[in-house]
C-alpha cells in the first residue's frame, strides 16, 4: 500500500507536483499516466525518499521509505534506465545491493536468471544494450523479493520484444499478489497492462479510477454510428442528452451517451443501425484531450481526428 497525501514539490516557481493525493492498493497493477513533464518521475522519487517534498507526504505501508527496516525487501524500484556503474559487472552490482539489506546471495543468481542476464552477468554493465540495462534495473528491483514494485517508464526505448517481456513480467508479478505502480506516457501501453489508473497533468490529479471505467468513459466520448435513418436517430440521441457530430463519411460521432443506451434509443425510434462502435483509437485521444490543458510541453499541431 502506497499513500500519497497532499504531495507538493516546488522548484523555484514551477509546481512540479501540486497537492497530489492518491492510494495505490495492493495486489494489482496501477498505471501512472501523464504526459512527459507531468511530474510522474518526481512523484516516484519522492515516494522513494530520493527527492524531498516541499509539503505533504508519501508513505509506504504507513511509514516513510527512510524508515523501512530493509527497504529492498519491501519496495523494488526501477527509476531510470541507468542506475549502475558502467565499469562494474551486473553480478557485482547486484551483490553490492544484496549485501546492504542482508539478502541471501542466492537471490542474485535467481534474479539474473529471471531477467535472462545469467550469460552476461560477469560482463561490464557499460557494454549492455538499452534493453539489457533495463533488465539489470529490473533485476535490482526484484532482488529483495519485494511486495511493492515501482517502475518509471519501464518500456521507454525498448524494442517490441522487450516491451512484450516487460508486459508479461508485470502481469506475472501482479498475479503473485504484488503491488505494482508503473508509470507511462503511453495510454495504449497502460490499457493493456493496468487494472487501475492514476492520471496526472502539470503535477495535478486528473483521474484516479478503474481502468475498465476509464476506458468506458473515455470511449463514450466518441461512439461511431452509421444509420440510413439519421433524420430520426440524431434528434432522438440529442433529446436523450447526447452530442452528435456528423462526419464527412456519412457516419456520426456521438458523445455523452453509453454505447448500450445508443442501441436502445435506435431500437425505440425504429432507426436501423448499420454500425455502432466504440473506437480504441479514441482512448489515446481521450487521454490527450484530458491532459492537453495540463501538458507542460506539447506540440502546436493537434493530431488529426481519426475516424476509425
Amino acid at each position: 500500500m502506497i499513500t500519497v497525501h497532499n504531495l507538493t514539490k516546488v522548484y523555484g516557481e514551477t509546481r512540479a507536483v501540486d497537492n497530489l493525493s492518491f492510494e495505490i492498493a495492493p495486489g494489482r497493477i496501477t498505471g501512472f499516466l501523464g504526459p512527459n513533464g507531468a511530474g510522474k518521475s518526481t512523484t516516484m522519487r519522492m515516494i522513494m525518499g530520493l527527492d524531498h517534498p516541499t509539503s505533504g507526504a508519501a508513505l509506504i505501508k504507513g511509514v516513510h521509505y527512510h524508515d523501512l527496516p530493509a527497504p529492498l525487501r519491501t519496495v523494488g524500484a526501477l527509476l531510470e534506465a541507468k542506475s549502475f556503474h558502467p565499469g562494474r559487472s551486473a553480478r557485482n552490482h547486484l551483490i553490492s545491493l544484496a549485501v546492504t539489506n542482508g539478502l541471501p546471495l542466492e537471490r542474485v543468481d535467481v534474479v539474473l536468471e529471471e531477467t535472462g542476464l545469467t550469460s552476461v552477468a560477469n560482463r561490464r554493465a557499460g557494454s549492455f544494450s538499452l534493453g539489457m540495462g533495463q533488465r539489470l534495473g529490473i533485476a535490482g528491483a526484484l532482488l529483495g523479493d519485494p511486495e511493492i514494485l515501482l517502475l518509471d517508464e519501464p518500456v521507454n526505448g525498448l524494442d517490441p520484444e522487450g516491451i512484450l517481456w516487460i508486459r508479461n513480467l508485470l502481469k506475472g508479478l501482479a498475479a503473485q499478489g504484488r503491488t505494482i505502480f508503473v508509470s507511462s506516457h503511453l495510454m495504449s501501453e497502460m490499457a493493456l497492462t493496468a487494472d487501475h489508473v492514476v492520471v496526472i497533468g502539470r503535477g495535478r490529479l486528473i483521474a484516479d479510477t478503474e481502468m475498465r471505467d476509464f476506458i468506458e468513459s473515455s470511449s463514450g466520448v466518441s461512439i461511431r454510428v452509421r444509420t440510413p435513418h439519421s433524420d430520426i436517430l440524431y434528434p432522438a440521441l440529442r433529446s436523450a442528452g447526447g452530442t452528435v457530430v456528423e462526419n464527412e463519411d456519412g457516419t456520426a460521432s456521438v458523445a455523452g451517451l453509453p454505447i448500450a443506451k445508443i442501441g436502445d434509443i435506435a431500437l425505440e425510434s425504429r432507426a436501423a443501425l448499420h454500425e455502432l462502435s466504440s473506437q480504441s483509437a479514441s482512448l489515446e485521444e481521450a487521454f490527450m484531450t484530458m491532459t492537453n490543458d495540463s501538458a507542460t510541453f506539447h506540440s502546436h499541431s493537434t493530431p488529426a481526428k481519426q475516424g476509425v
Partner: protein
Amino acid sequence: MTTATATRSEATFWRTVHAEWIKIRSVRSTMFTLLFMAILGVGISSLGALAVRAATNSGHLHHAINPVTHSLGGTLIAQIAIGVLGVLVFTGEISSGTLQSTFAAVPQRWKVLLAKVLVYFIIALIASEIVAFACFFAGQAIMSGVVTTANLSDPGVLRVVAGTGLYLPVIGVLALAIGVMIRRTAGAITAFVGIYLVLPLLVSALPSPYSTDIDKFLPFQVSQTMLSNVPVPGSLSPWTGFFVVVAYTVILIIIAGSLLKARDA
C-alpha cells in the same frame, strides 16, 4: 513474498561498509588510479634521487641534501592522484546514476557517506603507506654511496615516512567531501586542486606577516612539514599541522553530510 525478518535484514553500518568495499574493488578504475599513483610517485622520487646522484658525481651539487625529504618528493604528486580518486568515489556514483540504487538500498545518507569515507580511507591508507615507503627505499638506494643516506631508525625518519603515508588518505577524504558538496567531477577536481595548489600561491602574494601566518595553516604547507625530519621554519609542527588538516576534513565531511541529507539525490 516477504515474511519480514526485520532483525536479520536491517541495512546496518557494517553491511553498508561491506557493500562499499565490494563497489570500490569491483571497478577497474580504482586499482588503475592507485597503480598510476604508485608508479608516478615512486618514479618521480627515483628521478629526483638520480638527479642528486648525477649532480654529485659531476661536482655540481653545492648545497646539502636532506635525503629523507628528497626521496619523498614523489608523494606530492601522489597527493593529487589520491585526491582525484577521492572525488571520484562520490561523483562517479552521481554521474552513473548508481547513487539512486545506493540510496534505495540504504536510505540513511549519513550511513552511506561514512561507509564510503571509511572504506576509501583504509584503501588509500594502505596504498599511501606502500608508496611512501617505496619512495623512501628507492630514493635511499639510488643515492647511496653518493650522499649520506638516511635509515628508518634515524631520529624522526620513521615519523616522516609513515606520517606521509598517513597524511595522504586524509587529503583523499577531504577531496571526497568536496566531491559530495560539488557533485560534479570536473568542478570538484578543480576545487580540490585550487585549494591545494592555487590557494598557497594567492596567499604568498599577500603582504609579509599575513602571508606566512595564513600559509602555515594551508594543507600544502602542512604536507611540507610532514615530509621533513627537521623543523621547517615558520611552520606548524608536523603533528599539529596534521591535526589541523584532520580538523578541516572533519568539518568538510560534516558540511558534505548535511548537504547530502538536505538535498534531493
